[in-house]
């Protein structure tokens, strides 16, 4: 791979991060303008424009960084001549573009969906501004080259998501869930800061490239184990690993449906991405193989068992998210580039599938006015398009061949078998089969005949159109997965095998 070091003195290409940040700053002004002038959908239109522009600029960045052989170079961006390792920097490689692209894509789809869903709520200016800032925070985490820059964008993402969970504050549910989420996530932020202090004490710097140069491959002393455990606690609350997941089954149902889709689809995966990046840059895979494998089995099993007992559809989908994080941890524990490729492939696929499941379930809840599965008997026949896309999402989550969920789960478990963690692969397959039980139960209840003559009509066209686009992506990528596997392979090899290029871009 050809290393390309590029420290730019300014901004010569609109980064998706700058697009989202500037769009987020202008958004309150657009909101005030919309109230003065009286144009109804101006705020929603601005949000759609900003997220679409972020996706387009991501694609432009991808084209800019691809070399002629088809590899992706690493670019370091530092502002005003303040170079790393002393200054904060953004370091963009293939993995950053992959994650930022996923964030922008699902953000764009959710923005189109929430035009109709949130049209009767108040404080819409704050809503759209906070969603833009949450996406900006996630893009910043994907592109950070310094640990403290990652922490600042981590707090940006977290702060927006606390308030977005508690957004419908007229009811008691969102407020309670938001407070619980805030306290647990703030504690995790303190542990993350503590792990940064320990790293600083050991290595004198917080720059990722210099840490990968000096701290990686060190012998396992007790202090490194302390550092590893504070890192897992710090990142694990946000990515919903099992002993630290208790905020999730309360927060995801109580949030408004587009926010649930964003949270389950990409926020917890960003926590997992940050953990993957830091663990692979700081430690040898042999150090964290066994602990991560044990956490993965615990996460999968407990989440699947708890999901069987739920009667609230959004809470069931929230427990299913925790189980899917368990599957992604299988890929992390394998320690090879192939396993990490499976993890990142599953991150994108899960954002499509779970995002679409939450959006369709949100349409069902919006029309039927209840979240209980038992009271939704027979609604599926009255809302055919929404329930069709929900079925495709549930089949994909269960891993039925023909959907992209099957492809990513196949790669994950094959990686587990291939790196002598065969028991982990077996547990994963068993859990995947177990999860089909509750997915089929939802489908069965939705299609059962209805006794009382309740009539619900179909959701608005824009909401249905978004779910159809996501369903089409799920089926197309299930049958022809080559482009997304190509991207994921480039991303994972940039993390696991391309470390010399990563270090060389900063140290020269």
């Amino acid at each position, binding site marked *: 791979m050809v290393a390309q070091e590029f420290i730019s003195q300014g901004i010569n290409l609109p980064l998706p991060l700058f697009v989202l*940040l500037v769009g987020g700053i202008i958004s309150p002004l657009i909101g005030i303008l919309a109230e003065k002038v009286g144009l109804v959908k101006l705020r929603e239109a601005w949000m759609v424009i900003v997220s679409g522009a972020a996706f387009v600029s991501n694609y432009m960045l991808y084209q800019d960084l691809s070399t002629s052989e088809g590899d992706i170079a690493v670019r370091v961006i530092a502002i005003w001549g303040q170079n790393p390792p002393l200054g*904060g920097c953004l370091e963009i490689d293939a993995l950053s573009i992959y994650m930022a692209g996923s964030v922008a894509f699902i953000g764009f789809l959710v923005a189109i969906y929430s035009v109709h869903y949130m049209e*009767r709520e108040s404080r819409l200016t704050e809503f759209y501004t*906070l969603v833009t800032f949450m996406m900006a925070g996630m893009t*910043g985490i994907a592109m950070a080259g310094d640990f403290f820059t990652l922490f600042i964008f981590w707090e*940006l993402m977290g702060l*927006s998501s606390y308030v977005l969970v508690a957004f419908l504050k007229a009811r008691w549910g969102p407020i309670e869930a938001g407070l619980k989420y805030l306290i647990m996530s703030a504690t995790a932020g303190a542990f993350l800061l503590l792990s940064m202090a320990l790293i600083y*004490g050991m*290595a004198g710097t917080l720059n990722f490239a210099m840490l990968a140069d000096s701290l990686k491959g060190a012998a396992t002393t007790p202090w490194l184990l302390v550092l590893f455990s504070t890192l897992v606690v710090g990142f694990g609350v946000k990515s919903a690993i099992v002993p630290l997941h208790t905020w999730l089954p309360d927060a995801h149902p109580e949030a408004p449906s587009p926010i649930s889709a964003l949270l389950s689809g990409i926020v917890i995966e960003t926590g997992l991405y940050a953990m993957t990046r830091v663990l692979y840059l700081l430690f040898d895979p042999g150090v964290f193989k066994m602990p991560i494998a044990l956490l993965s089995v615990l996460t999968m099993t407990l989440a699947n068992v708890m999901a069987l007992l739920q009667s609230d559809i959004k809470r069931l989908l929230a427990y299913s998210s925790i189980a899917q994080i368990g599957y992604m941890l299988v890929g992390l524990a394998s320690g090879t580039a192939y396993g990490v490729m499976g993890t990142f492939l599953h991150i994108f696929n899960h954002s499509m599938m779970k995002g679409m499941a939450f959006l369709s379930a949100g349409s069902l809840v919006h029309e039927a006015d209840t979240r209980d599965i038992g009271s939704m008997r027979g609604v599926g026949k009255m809302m055919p398009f929404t329930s069709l896309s929900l079925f495709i999402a549930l089949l994909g989550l269960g891993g039925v061949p023909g959907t992209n969920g099957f492809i990513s789960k196949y790669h994950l478990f094959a990686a587990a078998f291939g790196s002598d963690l065969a028991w982990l692969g077996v547990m994963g397959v068993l859990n995947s089969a177990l999860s089909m039980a509750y997915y089929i139960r939802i489908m069965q209840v939705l299609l059962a005949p209805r006794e009382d003559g309740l009539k619900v009509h179909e959701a608005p066209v824009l909401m249905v159109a978004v779910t159809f686009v996501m369903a089409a992506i799920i089926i197309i990528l299930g049958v022809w997965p080559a482009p997304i596997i190509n991207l994921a392979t480039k991303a994972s090899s940039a993390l696991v095998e391309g470390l010399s290029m990563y270090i060389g871009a900063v140290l020269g």
Partner: protein
Amino acid sequence: MSRRMAKYGTAAATLAIVMSLFIFSWLTLEVPFPTNEYASSKLTRPLAPEEPYDGIATLVSRFLWEYRALDLTGQAFVIVTAVICCLALLKPEEGAS
């Protein structure tokens, strides 16, 4: 039943935390912390001399503005987000916006 589980859970968590305090203290006193052991030789650090104590403040603020401007910009955005968050939480809800 859940109150008993909560009581046992609190007791177990308290025990775990006190034990981790003892382990951490033993670890600090027995195994010396590897301070700067993994510092790369390519790292140049602008250290501030500690003798004129009131000079440290100006040197730290100069370091902040000269080397950490990206983080300061990010922090400005976090503060704007926090203001909008508090607005969203404390504004009274009208009927329809």
